[in-house]
């Protein structure tokens, strides 16, 4: 029962986060400074998601773990092809290779 309440409350809160600015945007004038800030959301949040996940897969920072070279190779594949699928198709086998040779 507690888990149900937790899921429903978290669901309502998450939906509120998603909706509030979509719902308000047509009615309020957005200050130019906010418009400028919005342009940097994507690079900032993606780097904040990616770098810790790659550098500390076990919760402790380890620059020598197998994710680091595999993620760099996947990133180069994405940059060269402008494709997300390429990053996975190249990056996942790269990880298997690194793990096979260095573990």
């Amino acid at each position, binding site marked *: 029962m*507690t*888990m*149900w*309440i*937790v*899921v*429903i*409350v*978290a*669901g309502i*809160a*998450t939906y509120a*986060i*998603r*909706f*509030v*600015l*979509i*719902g*308000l*945007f*047509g009615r309020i004038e*957005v200050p130019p*400074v906010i418009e*400028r*800030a*919005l*342009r*940097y*959301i994507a*690079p*900032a*949040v*993606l*780097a*904040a*998601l*990616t*770098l*810790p*996940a*790659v*550098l*500390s897969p076990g919760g*402790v920072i380890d620059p020598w773990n197998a*994710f680091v070279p595999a993620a760099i190779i*996947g*990133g180069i*594949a*994405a*940059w060269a092809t*402008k*494709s*997300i*699928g*390429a*990053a*996975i198709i190249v990056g*996942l086998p790269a*990880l298997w290779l690194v793990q096979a040779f260095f573990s």
Partner: protein
Amino acid sequence: MNSSEHATWSDGVRAVSPILLGVIPFGLIFGVTAATADVPLLAAWASSFIVFAGASQIALVEVMDGGGAPAVAVLTAIIINARMLMYSADTGRYTASESLWTKLGVAYLLTDQAYLVSTHRFPDPSNAAGFVRFYLAGGLTLWTTWQISTSIGIVAGTAVPASWSLEFAIPLTFMALLVLAVKDRPGLFAAAFGGATAVAAVGLPYQLGLPLGTVAGIAAGMTSERWFK
């Protein structure tokens, strides 16, 4: 005009299909986490359409499984999902003149992937109609994939061998989106400072590094604009 409208629906599905390679393992991982945790399985499964946000769903299960307080579980989910407030602000520029029902639907389908792919494809908010069709097509594809993959994970996910390291598909997806999102030097500054701050914050509780890194990255991007004029 008509043909381009039709193309945009299928464009949306096609644009998110490579990302599904990252979403499916993520869904399986959530399913396995829920199936092996000491939480009511039906409630954990229902979070896929009630919450519909993978990282926070895993956090809900882990906090409750570890005997955490319900308030801590909910707060953790809110902190992890706070970044969607920024997506909501940006998406609102595109949906300003849409109906309330469209706005409610767009909000429900708001995820990292739907937002980032759609704003990458439509950088200019004046093309609202194209954006909304593209976004809804992609968002529904992602939603359906998430429901199916989390369900399979709950039922049969333990059969996926750990040696495949499928969980790595998630950072790979974000890595690729990051590479595509950095379009100029201020954007590169935002990414560098956001990433460095989040790495420095590894070990802080409640995944606080994510909101801290995001704010630091945005500030760095805005500050660096004057150097690159």
